[in-house]
């Protein structure tokens, strides 16, 4: 237990020591999206009746920040440790791979949730955010940050250089999060893209999360959770399997 707690604490401390970059920057980015999109679209788009576009945008931006930062934490920590070689410090230690996994996962979730909370707090200055079902908000925030925490750990284990990690980030994570209803309801899409969106698990994360705020969504939140939780189970299993097998870590 001490081993797990130490590694978890170390991971938290790592991003806390560079908070401007790991927490401040993503909050500012989300704020910029909020200002620009709400300025351009506020008068033209109303997705749900009685919900302003700026308010509609907020949960999407919060969730996008949660996901991107949960991914970034584990992946960048692991690749830095691998490239600088200091990963050897905990590979030499008697940590079980479950402890290793949970420490990185929880730290990634904390980073994602802290950034998400930051975006929510800053966003509250610009729009009034209703909270209809706080438990749904919590459930989707936890489950979704865990999913992307796993993806980040897998990417961090797999990548051998920063370039590869940037590739995953820019060609998979960003498009996946952007094209999932952060900025729009998929009902506004042509039928084909609407159908495609239903195969994007991130769509369900954002949709379910948004339901928690407004009590309306594109799909039923139970349905959304029934997509997200199996994703989490599969990815967590895959991550544990890779760690147990020592993939790219123990040769």
């Amino acid at each position, binding site marked *: 237990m001490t081993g797990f707690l130490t590694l978890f604490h170390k991971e938290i401390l790592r991003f806390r020591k560079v908070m401007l970059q790991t927490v401040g920057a993503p909050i500012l980015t989300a704020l910029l999206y909020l200002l620009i999109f709400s300025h351009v679209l506020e008068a033209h788009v109303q997705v749900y009746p009685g919900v302003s576009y700026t308010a509609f945008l907020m949960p999407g931006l919060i969730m996008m920040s949660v996901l991107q930062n949960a991914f970034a934490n584990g992946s960048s920590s692991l690749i830095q440790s691998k490239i600088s070689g200091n990963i050897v410090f905990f590979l030499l230690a008697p940590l079980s791979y479950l402890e290793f996994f949970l420490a990185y996962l929880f730290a990634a979730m904390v980073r994602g949730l802290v950034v998400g909370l930051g975006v929510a707090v800053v966003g509250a200055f610009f729009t009034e955010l209703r909270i209809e079902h706080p438990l749904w908000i919590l459930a989707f925030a936890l489950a979704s940050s865990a999913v992307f925490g796993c993806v980040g750990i897998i990417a961090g284990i797999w990548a051998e250089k920063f370039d590869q990690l940037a590739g995953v980030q820019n060609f998979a994570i960003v498009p996946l999060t952007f094209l999932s209803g952060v900025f729009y309801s998929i009902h506004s899409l042509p039928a084909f893209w609407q159908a495609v969106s239903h195969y994007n698990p991130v769509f369900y994360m954002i949709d379910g999360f948004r339901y928690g705020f407004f009590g309306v969504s594109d799909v039923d939140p139970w349905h959304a959770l029934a997509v997200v939780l199996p994703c989490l189970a599969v990815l967590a299993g895959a991550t544990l399997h890779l760690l147990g097998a020592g993939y790219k870590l*123990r040769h």
Partner: protein
Amino acid sequence: MAAAIRVRDLAKRFGLLEALRGVDLEIGQGEFFALLGPNGAGKTTLISILAGLVRASAGEASVMGYDVVRQYREARRALGVVPQELVFDPFFTVRETLRFQSGYFGIRDNEAWIDALLHHLGLADKADTNMRRLSGGMKRRVLVAQALVHRPPVIILDEPTAGVDVELRQTLWGFIQDLNREGHTILLTTHYLEEAEQLCERVAMLKDGRIVALDRTENLLRGEAEHRLELRLSPPALPESLRPRLLQEEDGVFHLRLADYGELEPVLAELRRCGARVEGLCVSQPDLEEVFVRIMRGAA
């Protein structure tokens, strides 16, 4: 009593490269043991398997009787490794680094021992300095301290003195010798053969993934029974009768083979008889470096 380190028929293949080809080795508790060999001989691979960083293709390895794969937690608790590369975490100070390392080994409150380590390794005034700001030698000391936070009975040092100044080398060896006297088993790899000769009771030499020599240091040196007589003569010519003893001639210095000191007098008498005057003379005993060079050549 379990061996500190036991390795049976250990093999490791990286793709086409056979880094280890069936190594057997047993190191007893309390030994000071040297693992020598040229670059690429498999030393670091062997150490990495013991540490659990690399998985063997075949064979078994154990530390203090614990299998490094099946009982990895016990095996790793019994082992402290000072890695060859100068690695550090730039986010943290020296003390934070040592606290984290203690925590990884499940030790909660380790301040007294951390302070003792900092003191012994001359790091006390660097405790709150960020790792980035330390010199190479200081970083090396922190690596040694990190390997010792959990007081492991077996300590492996992989080329700990590469690129390290004389003062640190002496501090380090003094400290490691103290640990050895307290009962810790030490396994050392180094390119400085005089260090191995001075410090280690037993030596294994590795070449191309195989052990080509394994014996007590004194036996290896005794195997190299011959002494060497270096002569500078005037006129600079070696009498024909002494030719069979000639090992090499270098810058006018003749290196002659001597079985022992008893042969010195007859050689000098022969020189006198031939009218050669001795301008310089030196008798040297064999050292581990010569043994090493001979074995590495022979084991081709």
